């Protein structure tokens, strides 16, 4: 049993009352209009509403300074919200100090205690909870086996590689069976191959333990690989909260479209909107159709198309255009063409490197086309 966490000092009536005020009943973690300012002038987190379901793997993704880490720190209790409320399992936790929240946390640089052995590190949360030595030992062993690090008990953290240290940090954060696991860019310091391996490992642990995870990263591929849902942060706000595929396929604004994956952007002005389809005039080069996601007649817009959704010389397509090849880059599994399309010379097309592919040369003019569903008119 975890001690000190939750509403043990509150009556059941009080708990009911709190539940009433929470907007989303099913939420395990709820942010209700949470705000944070450090200097009293600029809000780094702006009126944040976010609900995390029990057992969910939610990732907060965004560039540095977007407010994602601050949000995580408020959840962990290291920063106090200057506005709004945070609920955990139905109880308001704004004023509960971090050590009473019972949350497991994994830090960017592992934060293993350098003067303790691996076993002492992992046993630390059990020791501060006064769990008996025999119990603690078996839990530590299980936790280390879980992260495949059994047999290193006597070593000091400095004797371990980065990946090993990260596993130990994970074991330490999980050994006391926390309500919630928070991870603050835990793989940031690892090399690419190890990082990918650890992503699958963390995902597997999440699935076997069924624990709720809130994960912070600025690496979009990491977010796409592991998450049930991703909250894309920018400028202190959640730009879009959706599952990985929805986020990639259906970005709601141009920031998300740009931040997740690669995107071609065609700037233009909306001429008219008919049945959810916008006609956008791209400079003087022509007019194309796009799904009207965030478009108003007469206002400027950005039409976004994924490079891999553009086809070369399609038999038939919703939208057709002519592109002049500016640059050809051979990348093994695909060929990357930089083209001038409708006056935009940064237009990228990815062509699958099949056995019957045609050759490309700089200066060639090729017909290209894409489906209307892959083409979204977004905000500027």
């Amino acid at each position, binding site marked *: 049993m975890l001690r000190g966490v939750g509403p043990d000092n509150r009556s059941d009536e009080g708990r009911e009352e709190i539940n009433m005020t929470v907007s989303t009943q099913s939420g395990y973690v709820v942010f209700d209009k949470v705000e944070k300012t450090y200097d009293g002038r600029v809000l780094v987190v702006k009126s944040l509403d976010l609900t995390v379901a029990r057992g969910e793997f939610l990732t907060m993704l965004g560039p540095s300074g977007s407010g994602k880490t601050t949000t995580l720190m408020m959840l962990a209790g290291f920063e106090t919200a200057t506005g709004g409320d945070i609920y955990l399992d139905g109880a308001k936790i704004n004023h509960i100090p971090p050590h009473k929240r019972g949350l497991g946390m994994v830090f960017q640089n592992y934060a*293993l205690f350098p003067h303790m052995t691996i076993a002492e590190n992992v046993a630390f949360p059990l020791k*501060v909870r006064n769990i008996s030595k025999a119990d603690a030992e078996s839990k530590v062993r299980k936790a280390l086996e879980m992260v495949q690090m059994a047999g290193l008990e006597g070593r000091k953290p400095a004797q371990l590689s980065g990946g090993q240290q990260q596993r130990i940090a994970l074991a330490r954060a999980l050994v006391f069976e926390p309500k919630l696991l928070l991870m603050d860019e835990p793989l940031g310091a690892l090399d690419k191959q190890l990082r990918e391996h650890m992503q699958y490992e963390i995902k597997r642990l999440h699935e076997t333990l069924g624990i709720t995870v809130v994960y912070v990263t600025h690496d979009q591929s990491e977010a796409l690989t592991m998450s049930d849902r991703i909250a894309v942060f920018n400028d202190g706000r959640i730009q879009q909260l959706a599952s990985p595929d929805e986020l990639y396929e259906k970005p709601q604004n141009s920031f998300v479209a740009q931040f997740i994956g690669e995107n071609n952007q065609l700037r233009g002005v909306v001429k008219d909107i008919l049945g959810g389809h916008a006609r956008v005039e791209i400079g003087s080069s022509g007019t194309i159709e796009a799904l009207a996601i965030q478009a108003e007649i007469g206002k400027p817009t950005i039409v976004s198309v994924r490079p891999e959704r553009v086809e070369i010389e399609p038999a038939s397509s919703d939208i057709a255009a002519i592109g002049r090849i500016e640059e050809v880059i051979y990348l093994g599994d695909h060929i990357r063409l930089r083209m001038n399309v409708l006056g935009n010379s940064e237009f990228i097309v990815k062509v699958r490197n099949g056995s019957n592919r045609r050759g490309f040369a700089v200066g060639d003019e090729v017909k290209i086309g894409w489906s209307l569903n892959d083409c979204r008119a977004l905000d500027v």
Partner: protein
Amino acid sequence: MHPTIDQKALTRQLATAERRNKIKAFLLVLPLLLFVLASFIVPIGSLVWQGGYSDTFANALPETSKLLAAWDAKSPVSEELVKSFVTELKASKLKDPATPTRVATVVNRELSGSVSKFKQVMNASDLASPYKEKLTALNGEWEKPDLWRAMKIVSPSFTPRFYLQAVDLRLTAEGDVKPEGDENAIHLLLFGRTLMVAALVTFFCALLGFPIAYLLAHAETKTSNMLLIIVLLPFWTSLLVRTTAWIALLQQNGVVNDFLVAIGLIDNDHRLVMMYNMFATLVAMTHVLLPFMILPMFSVMKTIKPNLVRAALSLGATPWTAFWKVYFPQTIPGLGAGCLLVFILAVGYYITPALVGGQSGQLISNIIAFHMQKTLNWSLASAIATLLLIGVLLLYWLYNRLVGIDKMKLA
């Protein structure tokens, strides 16, 4: 098969290639090496040497020394010994007129009142055979063995008597070791007091310095730079001025007493005695040595990752547990370095206790200075200083065993 490589030739080639670099490196450190040798190793060597060697007597009276060494220190002295003593003492004046006085002073340290008897011998012009009777006629003391026993003690050049004296023991003419009489036994007391003062000063410095170092290490850069300047400010002021400032503060008509009287906490007739005693020594030394504690602790605390404490808190440790079990152990290298530095400096501290310590606040270094400047007993001063050095080295060894010197971070 690999082509066989001539291992020896290879080693030789490497040595040749590296020799030039080695010579260069050696030439670079040579000036410092010579300086250290001249200013540190040689003086310390001579210090240790002088603590066990004093040839004033043996140089002036070589024959007498030999005869004294042969004497059993009980039976009446022989005519031969007395004759040699008188003639050699008289003759020593020809080389350097100050020699007889020096010899007398050396003997006087073992038996007070000897100087006047030596003077009588020097002033007497009619000393001839039989020397023993003539000398007894001059002063009855010459018949008693005491004077001769004192001379027997000081006559050997190599002697442990200074080291014994430094720990309040004395050498008898028979070569036995006896405890010093109560009126002379002050060295052990001073050693003890010095160690206690050094330990207390170290303790207070650690107690006062830790929070300041913490503040310095965790404040914003602007604030911490400002604080650091305040910490370093004392370094830019003369030690003498700082110590004297404490006199102005603590004396009976000083600022602190005036203030306490003004706010009515103490009566004007019962002003506190805070100056020229142990209290003043402790306060002033703690103040002077505080930066040596703060700086190493600060530099270590600066490297402690803030995430560690956060991790401890997130794992359920109370703020106190997080500090004590996670933060504090990380500060040990800095704390250890600071303590070692302050302790070693405090053990040898001289000016501050000399100025503010009065009688009860005097430390071992003050007695060393006393022997150097007042009694001119350099051998005893050397012996005490050597013992102090050995004590500090022992502590250093102990520290290395407990904390590990490689973990020490000074700045």
